[in-house]
């Protein structure tokens, strides 16, 4: 197997260049979505665990049920209608406004805009990314929330949590400082798997928002029957998945002291 993947038939450029040129856009989108999903799902899991047995928990369950049953494709379309057309706050196409001059040297636009302290560019980029990221994030947020909530509730029932409360610590403290780290570990594997699904979802969501990432490129490649390009993209996705699974395994070991000594 050679190191390079040849030339793209449709684009007449080196496959490697094209693919790695588009990869950062997808990575930025996927990780933004991941951050949103973890923040949203984590927050409402913690809320539901602290107020377990009340209407708050029921509300969270309902929210999760709804977000989980609607796929990212539909969320994307809903957001386009709500926040792109009905109340036009965000842009619904592309990665950045075409009128802007871009001083970037790498394809990591979002990160570079931060490094260069270009707040205007950062906001524009974010404005284009927020809706596709939300569409990708919502189903993952529901999974994160469900799994974390169950683990948290279980952890809060453990003896060490009760003992911590006898020492004088509040329930909030106990949840954050005692229960959370034990609840996160069993959730990690599932979240990792769901994140790979999220990556797969970039294919259609990017297309929906005309976002110039790897997923969008994949569809073009398939439609144009550009075999070298297809091969390159599929391989890259495969590498990403393996990488994600590996990272999850490493994190699990790092967080669980019982696994460290073999």
């Amino acid at each position, binding site marked *: 197997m050679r190191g390079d993947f040849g030339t793209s038939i449709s684009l007449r450029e080196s496959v490697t260049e094209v693919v790695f040129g588009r990869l950062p856009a997808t990575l930025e989108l996927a990780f933004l979505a991941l951050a949103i999903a973890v923040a949203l799902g984590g927050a409402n899991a913690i809320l539901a665990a602290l107020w377990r047995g009340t209407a708050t928990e029921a509300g969270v369950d309902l929210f999760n049920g709804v977000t989980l*049953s*609607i*796929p990212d*494709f*539909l969320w994307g*379309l*809903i957001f*386009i*209608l709500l926040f*792109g*057309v009905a109340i036009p706050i965000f842009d*619904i196409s592309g990665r950045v406004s075409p009128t802007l001059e871009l001083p970037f040297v790498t394809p990591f636009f979002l990160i570079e805009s931060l490094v260069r302290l270009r707040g205007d560019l950062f906001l524009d980029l974010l404005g284009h990314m927020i809706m596709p990221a939300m569409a990708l994030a919502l189903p993952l947020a529901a999974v994160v929330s469900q799994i974390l909530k169950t683990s948290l509730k279980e952890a809060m029932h453990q003896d060490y949590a009760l003992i911590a409360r006898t020492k004088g610590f509040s329930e909030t403290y106990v949840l954050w400082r005692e229960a959370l780290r034990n609840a996160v570990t069993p959730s990690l594997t599932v979240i990792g798997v769901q994140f*790979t*699904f999220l*990556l*797969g*979802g970039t*294919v*259609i969501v990017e*297309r*929906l928002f005309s976002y110039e990432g790897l*997923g969008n490129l*994949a*569809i073009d490649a*398939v*439609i144009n*029957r550009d075999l070298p390009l*297809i091969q390159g993209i*599929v391989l890259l*996705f495969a590498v990403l*998945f393996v990488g994600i699974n590996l990272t999850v395994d490493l994190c699990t070991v790092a967080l669980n002291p019982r696994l460290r000594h073999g």
Partner: protein
Amino acid sequence: MAEPRAIHRRLNVRLWLGGSWIGLLFFCAIFAGALAPHDRLAQDLMLQTLPPAWIDGAEPGYYLGTDSLGRDILARILYATRPALIVAIVASSAACAFGSLLGLMAGFFGGWTDRVISRLVDIWMAFPPVLLSILLVAVMGPGLSSVIIAIAVIDWTRFCRVVRAEAMQQRRMDYVDSAKAMGYGTGRIMAREVLPNVLPAILVLFSLEMGIAVIVEAILSFVNLSISTDDPTWGSMIAEGRSIVHQAWWVLVFPLLCLFLTVLAFSQFGEGLKERFDPVMR
């Protein structure tokens, strides 16, 4: 010590609402010809992108407006129920049949059969479904049959997992041993004894799968890989609507609404079935 109100008396809202919408879809699919006010393919460039009936500038008779080629949106939506339902039923059945068979075998026989099949399922499930389906359809050439095959090929693992788990549970039960003691062959035991007990789980999954199939078909027709003719599908209508969403929002909204409600209906119907079969689990 039980609550005075019996649990199963409560009206199963999900089942009824979901079922009603699904029934409505079937009705529309079968009677689309009679229900549609216009021909679904007829273009009229004098009537391009007209708004729905309750907005200024609408043309009477075109209740939901027209698209960029002057075609009646209502008629197209009605006819689009056909490919959606065809894909839903056929693809789900294929995935169900194949997956359930393998699942039954894996769960019932155990040992090597189980190991091989489980490994297969694990590897299969590692691929991103959307990408895989696009690849498959591109390879097979666009069209409804390609879409159906792609969905079946990708989603059979869903059935396999669940059926395997159920079959493993059932295999341990006494009635299987007594059937064996009476000399019944394995095939007969699987079909006559185990299958009926696994059926509820399969049915629930089937309903969920139909919703998934409709979405996948919509995505594939969104990227132009499904039906290649002018025959309308919600996905292709959504694609067109998306490109002119700022000028003519209705072209996107109505097929999206149908798609949304359909997916919701299938998933809620499945949840309702789950509740119906397993009232204890609440």
